[in-house]
């Protein structure tokens, strides 16, 4: 399996705060990589660095062999890297379909309007919003908006999908459904890099897991390995001192 996304030595500092420090990892084609870590570990910042929302201070991001470090967000999207937002950001006064047409139009395939509409319809169907096609995005429930967020990213027919907490705020039934959708997406050949707080879900979905703490990589491996790692447990217990002690030992 080839590496689709390669991240090397990525660092970002805000004022005196080191948000991300010398982070390296890779996402292989056709897999799901889970990115976990306690609150404030810098997970969303990593996404923002990959997407070009912020330019990294150091390090390199390669996507399918091309250097995309520090490119503007819309250029990154053109390379086939799509993303959902932790806090949903639908185009409130557009319909569900129109929202997804934007994704399809300007994503990797850069489709003309008419064909974008087809791609958008497919994406809407995939996430199960087909009966709300002409509803305004602002009229959807939170769960609906989360699915719209996903459909919009999918409509671009990306190679890699970055999912930022798509399960947060959903009830158990909705979570089950979303997990099913994510699996379908992976099976259709789209690789996924996801941030998630729900341990159970991410452990079962991910092929590999990277654990982030205070902006640095704490651990990486198969879900089972990571779950057994005492440093990870320490980090999640919320005692940074514990982790340092472990490191020293």
């Amino acid at each position: 399996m080839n590496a689709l996304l390669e991240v090397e030595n990525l660092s970002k500092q805000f004022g005196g705060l080191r948000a991300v420090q010398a982070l390296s990892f890779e996402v292989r084609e056709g897999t799901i990589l889970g990115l976990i870590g306690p609150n404030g570990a810098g997970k969303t910042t990593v996404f923002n660095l990959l997407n070009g929302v912020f330019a990294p201070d150091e390090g390199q991001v390669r996507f399918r062999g091309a250097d995309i470090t520090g490119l503007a967000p819309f250029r990154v999207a053109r390379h086939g890297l799509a993303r959902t937002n932790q806090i949903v950001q639908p185009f409130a006064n557009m319909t569900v379909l129109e929202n997804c047409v934007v994704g399809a139009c300007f994503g990797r395939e850069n489709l003309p309007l008419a064909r974008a509409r087809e791609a958008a319809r497919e994406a809407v169907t995939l996430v199960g919003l087909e009966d709300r096609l002409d509803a305004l995005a602002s009229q959807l429930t939170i769960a609906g908006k989360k699915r719209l967020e996903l459909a919009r990213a999918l409509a671009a027919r990306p190679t890699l999908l970055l999912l930022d907490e798509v399960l947060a705020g959903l009830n158990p039934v909705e979570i089950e459904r979303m997990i099913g959708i994510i699996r379908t997406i992976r099976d259709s050949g789209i690789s996924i890099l996801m941030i998630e707080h729900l341990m159970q879900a991410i452990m079962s979905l991910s092929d590999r897991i990277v654990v982030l703490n205070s902006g640095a990589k704490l651990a990486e491996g198969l879900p089972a390995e990571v779950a057994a790692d005492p440093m990870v447990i320490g980090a999640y217990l919320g005692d940074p001192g514990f982790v340092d002690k472990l490191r020293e030992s």
Partner: protein
Amino acid sequence: MLGLLASILDGVLIGAVYGLAAMGITLIWGVMDVVNLTHGAMIVAGMFAAYVLVGAAGVPVYATLPIVLAGGFLVGVGLYWLSVHRVIGQPPLMSLLSTFAVNLVLVGLGTAVWGTDLFNVPASLPGFSLGRYTFPGTHLMAALLTGVIALALYFFLYRTRLGKAVRAVSNNREAAELVGIPTARVLALAFGLGVALASVAGMLIATMFPFTVLSGDAYQLKSFVVTVLGGLGNPTGALVAGIALGLVEGLTTPFVPVSWTLVIEFILFVVVLITVPGGLLTLFRRRRPA
């Protein structure tokens, strides 16, 4: 040389008053993200209030200040409930338009009542001289009163409970609401304060220069420039920027044809907006961690 010094000094005096006017805009923006386009009209309202109080009611010139301040505050609170409250939290266009609409009404009424003739508030205080150059007492007094009002505002915002509530709402409206601060009333209070500052600035300007109903436009534009130079939402910045602008005007007038000063001012305005939208003061401040 002495002339240059005199121009700079006087530029600083007048600039302080422009800064006071700009504080009104910047306070409102800082607290509720609204650009108050009734600002110019309220400056003019302050001028005419002084004119009427002195002319018709015989109030001594500087005794009109507290009356104008209180009146401006009440009018501001009224304007808030009339035109701003409903558009809080909406896109910036809405509040720009609602305050612009009120401005149209006020200017229209003002023109109908006073026409576009000129008015003057008779004010005279002994000044002092520097060689052949004289500083009118009215200018000194206006700058002095500006300083007093700015200090009072500072004291209010940082030392009183109500002022702290204003700053809390300014920092984070939702959080302020959660801890039980009646945000709508605090917003109305802040809008009232902003308008009060504008009208007092108008009253002080009226003691120095004659005016017409349409004078508001020029002062409003100037206030925008000062506000942007000082950083939107930063009252101290506004005062400093006002003084700085007066200084620049005093400094350039002896050397540059006056008709070019506007060009320079607006180029500066746009360039500062693009390069340092936080205002010139941020250039001197050390960057703090985010």
